[in-house]
């Protein structure tokens, strides 16, 4: 038996950088360093753990849809231990929304072949948290999302979803789409050996034609959503800061009373 896992990983602007919009109201990628979305490291980690706990042959492919630099995200995932990578890259993809992104990812996943798709819980830029559910809908397979614990055995994926009202145990047969939260287990750091090995691992590049997708189905043109404006939030006016010299709690209470919170 063999198990083919595709891990979707997004290349995003560094959240600690000065993120902003370009003139066409898409994310400006030129001024801010990009990196592998930190929450997708958890997805790669779970794929590696499933592989390590399995008696089957497991092949882990990492997949990204993004600009040329997105190769950096793939390299990071490969250096953690994934086997191979697919980069979907096409100028016509600029400005693609969630519906379009899910189309491209789904076509690429089908072309690659899969038994299990693992995604992060959300990207750290768009932070919608919808792509895994959209992939399940497109691929016509079960979604087992937002897991803090995941395992695969005998063609079945099991996991635990910790929601607000309850903690749930979930189960579905493969093929399936899983997403994992940052509670699923710390992601490993690439070792020196891993980084060296990653340089030799195959990275395939596909464009829209390879996936039989028309340019007008994606990008700004194909988008189902339009951003009309983006305004920087006005800086907060400087607040009052006091040093506690024994009365700090009382002073704060006075402030809260003045604001009618008490």
């Amino acid at each position, binding site marked *: 038996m063999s198990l083919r896992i595709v891990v979707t990983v997004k290349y995003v602007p560094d959240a600690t950088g000065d993120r902003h919009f370009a003139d066409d109201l898409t994310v400006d990628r030129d001024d801010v360093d990009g990196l592998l979305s930190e929450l997708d490291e958890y997805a790669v980690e779970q794929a590696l753990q499933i592989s390590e706990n399995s008696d089957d042959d497991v092949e882990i492919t990492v997949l990204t849809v993004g600009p040329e630099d997105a190769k950096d995200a793939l390299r990071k995932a490969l250096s953690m231990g994934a086997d191979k990578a697919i980069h979907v890259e096409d100028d016509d993809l600029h400005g693609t929304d969630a519906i379009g992104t899910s189309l491209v990812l789904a076509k690429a996943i089908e072309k690659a072949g899969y038994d299990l798709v693992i995604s992060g819980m959300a990207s750290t830029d768009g932070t919608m948290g919808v792509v895994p559910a959209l992939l399940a809908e497109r691929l016509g397979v079960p979604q087992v999302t937002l897991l803090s614990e995941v395992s695969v055995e005998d063609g079945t994926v099991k996991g635990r979803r910790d*929601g607000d*009202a309850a903690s749930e145990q979930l189960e579905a047969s493969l093929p399936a789409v899983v997403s994992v939260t940052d509670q699923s287990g710390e992601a490993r750091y690439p070792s020196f050996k891993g980084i060296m090995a990653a340089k030799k691992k195959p990275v395939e590049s596909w464009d829209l034609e390879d996936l039989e997708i028309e340019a007008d189905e994606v990008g700004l043109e194909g988008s189902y959503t*339009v951003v009309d404006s983006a305004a920087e939030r006005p800086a907060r006016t400087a607040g009052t800061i006091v040093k506690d010299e024994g009365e*700090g*709690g009382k002073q*704060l209470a006075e402030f809260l009373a003045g604001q009618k919170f008490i």
Partner: protein
Amino acid sequence: MAEVLVYVDHVDGAVRKPTLELLTLARRIGEPVAVALGNGAADTAAVLAEHGAVKVLTHDASEYADYLVVPKVEALQAAYEAVSPAAVLVPSSAEGKEIAARLALRIGSGVITDAIDLEAGDEGPVATQSVFAAAFTTKSRIAKGTPVITVKPNSAAVEAAPAAGAVEALAVAFSEKATGTKVTARTPRESTGRPELTEAAIVVSGGRGVNGAENFAIIEALADSLGAAVGASRAAVDAGWYPHTNQVGQTGKSVSPQLYVASGISGAIQHRAGMQTSKTIVAINKDAEAPIFDLVDYGVVGDLFDVVPQLTEEIKTRKG
């Protein structure tokens, strides 16, 4: 007037506040038709009618509890087909977003998530989003299909507006897909008796500076003196001092209360992402350089073990 579908978030018939906020927003763009599913669905009608629902479509089946997400998508799709609404609004919970996205794909529409405001526009509803850790405010629309929009809690003040609220049974035929992911066990979370984090008007949070699970008692005492919900930073959650369901931030809850009190929290970008839109922000931190102080309306540089108990005592005294 156009109808607007509103997905009802309820627990055994008790409607949660974000749904009432949605009804208020829905009235700006049309006549709200509510969709309530699962156990107690019909019991939601009275409160929904009081808040403007002209109709309440209800359906109960064991599938809603036994399988993940898809049965709810299929029911909402049935409602969409029955009503042909001008828009579909869903509360922005993790599940709500998944339901909205799958529905949008099925009906050939776009989806906008985490709107913080909604108004009628010439080309359909315009959604305001707060993005990049609340550093930017965007306005967006759906360009194709019927707008499907999820809205964050605390995005509008709930206004009563009595309407007919006629209850109608919704006909739903589940497909094979609906039973793909089985819920094999469910452990309900114990209620703390405190307000729901995302819905609370006041949130009191503790971070690494609280230094131990047992010390969270002083954060809870302050919260209780204010009738507030308790939040925590990821550092506190990862250390096992407080449950993950109380985490505020990018990978936790995003809150937008009238008052946010941060104690022993430095104010990392990922934490700010979840609380930056709070109306009034207060922090207690012993490091005068902590980034959280850039956000505050009032900050106390000091040891939280001195300041927080004194604050709690003073609040109790003032409240008598």
